[in-house]
């Protein structure tokens, strides 16, 4: 068994449930919502992800590489004098470097978002749970990962009951 899944209708209820679960000592929890819920990240106690850092790194690499390539092609690899223009015409070389700064930032961000979220992942045990179909519609879910023992599962079930969810389902591996 992977864990127990509790269904809620309201974002405030889910946030309260997350806080209660953490207070009860359940560390391995996961919250699901059909829209970004304000304050849920903080309630979960998640560390800030590093997407902005990767985007900055992408921006620096993209701009830097393009600017370097312009220098390399006009100064080192094939210098050619056209009307006395300086080989390294740095102001005229800025526009391509600027566009590549922006492009690489976004590509790095998209990759960081997908890799950080372990996507694409076409199958997941949760998709086998009937109720979970509404996680992308109008319901919010709390998943408690519990150890593979009857005692633990029963305790978790009893705890979830106290949160008065709409339903509780078992998620199998």
């Amino acid at each position, binding site marked *: 068994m992977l864990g127990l899944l509790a269904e809620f209708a309201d*974002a405030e209820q889910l946030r309260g449930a997350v806080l209660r679960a953490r207070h009860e000592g359940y560390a391995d929890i996961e919250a699901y*919502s059909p829209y970004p819920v304000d304050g849920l990240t903080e309630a979960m106690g998640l560390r800030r*992800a590093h997407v902005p850092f990767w985007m900055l790194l992408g921006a620096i690499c993209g701009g830097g590489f393009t600017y370097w390539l312009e220098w390399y092609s006009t100064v080192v690899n094939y210098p050619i004098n056209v009307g006395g223009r300086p080989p390294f015409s740095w102001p005229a*070389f800025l*526009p391509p470097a600027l566009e590549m700064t922006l492009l690489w930032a976004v590509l790095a961000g998209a990759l960081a978002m997908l890799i950080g979220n372990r*996507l694409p992942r076409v199958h997941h045990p949760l998709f086998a749970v009937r109720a979970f179909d509404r996680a992308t519609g*109008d319901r919010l879910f709390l998943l408690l990962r519990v150890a593979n023992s009857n005692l633990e599962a029963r305790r978790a079930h009893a705890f979830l009951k106290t949160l008065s969810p709409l339903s509780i389902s078992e998620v199998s591996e």
Partner: protein
Amino acid sequence: MSAALPDDALPPVIEPGQNSSTITTEISAVTLERPTGWLWIIGLLISLALSGLLFVGFCWLLYAGVGIWGLNIPVAWSFAIANYVWWIAIGMGGTFISAGMCLARQPWRSSINRFAEAMTVFAVSVSGIFPILHLGRPWFFYWLFPYPDVMNVWPQWRSSLEWDFWAILAYLIVSLAYWYVGMLPDLATLRDRSPTLAKARFYGLLALGWRGEARHWMRFEQFNLITAGVAVALVFSVHSMVALDFSEALVPGWHETIFPPFFIAGALFSGFAMVLVLGIPLRRFYGLQAFLNDRHIVNMAKMMLCAGLFVDYSYFSEIFTAFQSMDRYDFAMTLHRLYGAYAWAFWGTILLNVLNIQLLWIPRVRRSHAAVFLIAIGVLIGMWLERFMLIVSSLYEGFVPSAWGMFWPTFWDLAFLAGSVGLFFLMFLLFARLLPVLSMFELRKLAHQGGSGGVERGGEP
């Protein structure tokens, strides 16, 4: 604008009583359950026919060369470049709505941004065809790219045409990434609501396994926010590059420092017009009245008017500067523009881009969807005429009378213009049928926060 206008009586951003359930049901039903209407089929057939014409034109051009168009010396740029600038400009409006207004925290944009962003992707894709075909030997277009080749030839980095290549490339890929990543949660909704296994597989593959985990949302929001900032920088830089294609040339009427801001204003102007032209029928035919109402139309109409006034100021400034500069060539070019062989293009532009939009000052006109739709169509035609006028009226009478010559469009000029419109609508119609037309997760969030329009005037959403 001013609080005294009766616009304060506008409905809230989304209909009161809408919640996650109703939003999900109504919007996903547009894609999943609604039968294909005959109007859609007729639209698709027309766009398919026009796209076919574009394809035939494309093949004929590869065989016979750009001579099938009416361009020649002295008018070496004409329809192709006008079409290119027109289409890429339309894209700018969509990015500005989805990115700029996201940064400005305008909650009403949640109803518009998805199809505005789709419009951007399609418009930029269409626009990219023209500069490539215009190269003359389109099959060598990859020479613009600095790849290590045995000829040891590098691109000319100092040329604004090369900058343009980088600008279009960056803009197309960034728009696609922003649009697609922003659509993942909604694709997941369609996956989970699919009535058949085939549909579930189709949307399941597209959704990449999105589950709406708190961690997913955190990274998703980080990406979306920063990309919005990058996209706004792209709007301004890309269209500046388009303008620099003109102002880097020593041609009277092109060689002007006002061009980049003037072009950006024109881009937003035509982009807002296209959003209205797409949004008003979309709302009507797909029954999206609960999410797209008078408030959105009125706000968009105001933004179109505002961008239009910037454009109108630029027209005035161009003419004023020409006379104030006392440069005889600028002088002559302006007189040709106003009274020459292409005066109809100039006065048509003035009629459609200056006079036409002044009607939007009247609150009753802004509230009439039919009127706003017609004005927006007028703006789109006017903006195309403006690009044509700027290109042709600067070229057809050069510095010496021996270099004067007229441009007349051929059948293929018109076919490529009509075909590009067909290709754009073909992609948009398929989008409206296959992908989520409105951003469901943003509307859910808005509904959760109360969905009121009261926060619109500068408050926190």
